[in-house]
């Protein structure tokens, strides 16, 4: 990496980190796994004056369940997620998504917190967190706030996190019984950003009626996107080929992809439809299993 000059700080507590953030203002960048930040610095798209490495701050690397909430610390690595038995038991979607995030090198370093904080609709966790209706815990010197995922993403590389704040945790509501979740993305090769990606979580009651639907879309919209009409098309209904087709059609219509080397707008819309259909099927199968 031939980055521009920068200072490096490695605080050992959140308070210390907040002091540093205040000192440098928006000239500082937090370093978690570094697998989005460092490529940007290498290309000199980002030239922060200071890197604040939060990896030495204790307490941010755990996956714990507290009652109805599953908590993922900001520094939990993708590789850790791959082996988190309780998390995977309730949210099989994490087994799907981590497998699709690049290669072992990236997964050994990249964090779930960083994946969200990066604020890129091309990353895979945003859509997953939307499907799960997660919340993000953001801490600053003046206290802590909990931001629902729907209010977290502001724009390209821009989130609800203020320059003097740190994302410390992700909170996911525990699902009701008979819930299943699934994620898939089309990628041109391993480690590529999604041509299109769809995350689905469904709850299906004893009568076969869908009581919960969460659907998030990856890289087919300027911001990470919830497919709200698709969710509505499922909730309160039986999961049939017709309801699935309707949900898929809405997702395809409502997203707003841009053409690039992965394909044109028509292709991407079509892929959103195909994947929505497939992921609803898969999530539904897991829900009743």
């Amino acid at each position, binding site marked *: 990496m*031939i980055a521009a000059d920068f200072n490096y700080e490695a605080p050992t507590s959140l308070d210390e980190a907040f002091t540093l953030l205040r000192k440098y203002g928006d000239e500082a960048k937090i370093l978690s796994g570094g697998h989005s930040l460092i490529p940007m610095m290498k290309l000199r798209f980002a030239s922060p004056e200071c890197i604040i490495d939060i990896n030495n701050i204790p307490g941010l690397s755990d996956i714990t369940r507290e009652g109805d909430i599953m908590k993922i610390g900001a520094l939990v690595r993708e590789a850790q997620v791959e082996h988190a038995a309780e998390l995977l038991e309730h949210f099989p979607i994490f087994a799907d998504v981590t497998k699709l995030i690049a290669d072992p090198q990236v997964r050994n370093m990249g964090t779930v917190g960083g994946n969200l904080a990066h604020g890129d609709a091309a990353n895979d966790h945003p859509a997953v967190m939307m499907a799960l209706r997660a919340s993000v815990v953001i801490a600053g010197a003046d206290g802590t706030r909990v931001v629902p995922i729907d209010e977290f993403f502001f724009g390209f590389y821009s989130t609800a996190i203020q320059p003097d704040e740190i994302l410390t945790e992700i909170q996911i509501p525990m699902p009701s019984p008979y819930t299943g979740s699934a994620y898939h993305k089309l990628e041109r*090769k391993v480690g590529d950003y999604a041509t299109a990606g769809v995350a689905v979580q469904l709850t299906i009651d004893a009568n076969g009626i869908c009581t919960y639907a969460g659907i998030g879309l990856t890289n087919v919209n300027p911001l990470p996107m919830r497919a709200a009409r698709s969710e509505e098309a499922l909730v309160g209904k039986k999961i049939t080929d017709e309801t699935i087709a309707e949900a898929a059609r809405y997702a395809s219509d409502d997203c707003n992809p841009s053409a690039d080397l992965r394909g*044109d707008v028509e292709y991407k819309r079509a892929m959103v439809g*195909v994947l929505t259909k497939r992921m609803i099927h898969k999530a539904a199968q897991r829900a009743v299993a």
Partner: protein
Amino acid sequence: MTQVCKTSKAIGGMGHSMKRKEDGRFLQGKGNYVDDIKLDGMLYMDIVRSPYAYAKIKKIDSEAALKVPGVLAVITGRDLEQYNLHWMPTLMSDTQMVLPTDTVMYQAQEVAAIIATSRYAARDGREAVRVEYEVMKPVIDPFKALDPSAPVLRTDKPGKTDNHIWHWEVGDKARTEAVFASADVVVKEQMHIPRIHVASIETCGCVADYSKVNNHLTMYMTTQAPHAIRTVIALVAGHVGLTEEKVRVISPDIGGGFGGKVPVYPGYVIAIAASFLIGKPVKWIEDRSENLQADSFARDYHITAEMAGTKDGKILATRFKVLADHGYTDASANPSKFPTGMFSIATGSYDYGTTFMEADAIYTNKPPGGVAYRCSFRVTEAVHAIERMTDRYALEIGKDPAQLRFDNFIPKEAFPWHSPTGWIYDSGDYEAGLRKAMDAIDYEGLRKEQTEKRAKGELMGIGISTFTEVVGAGPSKDFDILGIKMFDSAEIRVHPTGKAIARFGTKSQGQGHETTYAQIIAEELGIPAENIQIEEGDTDTAPYGLGTYASRSTPTAGAAAAVAARKLRDKARKIAAYLLEVSEDDLEWEPGKFFVKGAPEKSKTIQELVFAAYTNHPQGMEAGFEATHYYDPPNLTFPSGAYICVVDIDKETGEIKVRRFVAIDDCGNIINPMIVQGQVHGGLTQGIAPAMYESLIYDDDGNILNGTLMDYLVPTAVESPNWETGHTITPSPHHPIGAKGVGESPTVGAPPAIANAIVDALSPYGITHLDIPITPFKVWKALKEKGAI
């Protein structure tokens, strides 16, 4: 034919899967690459590159850059002009800017160089240089380059009135036209073999170390052809005092070359100039994006391909018309007399009467290149054209493409076979190869399965490629680069204790020469391969040779090793006769010793004979045990292969899964089966690359759209199917050890097998051709257009 090992495992001659001698250092991180070289007082260079494809340079403002701490100098074309070093010749006798004085001709072209005390300061300096450009409308589409309205790009060439570089043709035009006119079946496709990049793991770079005191340049450099480079440096810089004896080129370990490290890039010349002017070593190492965006591309042939035949499947003639997009200059790495390389091998493995091929090369505002990326000079393009058209023809007449091939193969009795374009194929048994591949993959079973799948609307395809390669350039009557004949060399020195060092004019970039050359010498002399040290890459110590590319090392330098070793064996025989007090004719050789016919207990080992060469040699005989040979091959070698690929396609998404891939290669006698298999695995992976993933893409303004590895999709282990490999052996009759060369066959042969399989899967919907790389999007689009989804 099968091959038996003539030597014991302890000797490790031909046919033994000896572990690679070089891997010890590579696997332990002890390789020595250019970027590992650190010299006292070494400075670092970085390069300002053009953001535009075609622009006038109005001003280069270095003031801010020179204020960056550590920046010592900013070098521009005007500075080099004072020494007449701002232009350099290309291998194809065209000219190329080192640094521009007036105009930039492609995006990422070198504009100025920064010399600084650290790599970081050099990059900071680069960011601080301000260049004012006057942007012009570039010529990007090669089909529009010859429009009268297109701007003439090479205004530096006096009298140039268009963007045409050269026209080339071969074959019998009149006869071919007559056959086409009367043939029952004619098929035609327009195809593009995409512009791709070797993307070797190690980028290019050098350390230029000029000593003012000694007036001597040592050039450490990532080059596949160190000796030729030394000559080129002397030709370019002789006028400033760097004559050939004052130049030493050292090519250390190389992290992949694939043809991309044959050319001389402007960065090398600027580094030399900087070291010459400043008197300190200057290191230049490209970053990944620079490597991808500015260094030589490969391929980029637009081909109109036609085949004529009978209704029942006999090929009668082919016709190929090529438009070659060379970018801003013709910097192809071809033998001088072959502007299209060996494209004329495009008649393929088939026996038919006539062909006509022509090519026109043109200038565009793209980076120059045309390197032989793991391909013996444009053979990949040729093989794609003929193998695609063979399948196209089979589809047209509704014949099984395997059967069509059997009906048209050059029969094995017909070798040496004279091709309609003048090649003399040395040997081959194409039928045996295809049979073996079909048995391995259960071809009949697959076709049955395909019929069932098609009935259900599922997409499954089977693709074949039965290709002939042409490698080992080459015989001196036809082959030279800048006038230097394309022989290669070996020098063997055996020490008194019977251990040896051998040096070569070639240069391994991962091919395993340190092992295979030792095995060749072990085969001929019986000295264990373990005890033979191989060296290449230092022009002060190694004999002159043209380097490693185009699968030429085994056919040329490997042959030289065998011949030099045989000279030594002759000497050993003389010494043995002297020591055993018999006549030379009474002696018989078995690997490692001479013994007296009928009295095998009376023998001398090679080690004893070598020792005697230093301690007790016959009077009148020259002492020592050394031999050198410069091998001028009598002909090229013609490896071949039969590849079969099976794909399954997801109709809804267009995703392609390569289910199976069987590769049966024939590279003649095999030196090290494990290394051959490794070469084939790597080559096949570089074959799926252009077939499904890679191509350099430019927009209308000449901006590269995939100039980093985020978007230039180099396949990884995940994308690679399980390669199933095997071989047939048809030795080269003219090569001393019957070997042919293998490094490139898989890269050449794989793309059409994959393309044929994909088109086969899609053919029920009327799809007859898709250009590579065939992506999911492309498949989906084609199915959509045909109303299949």
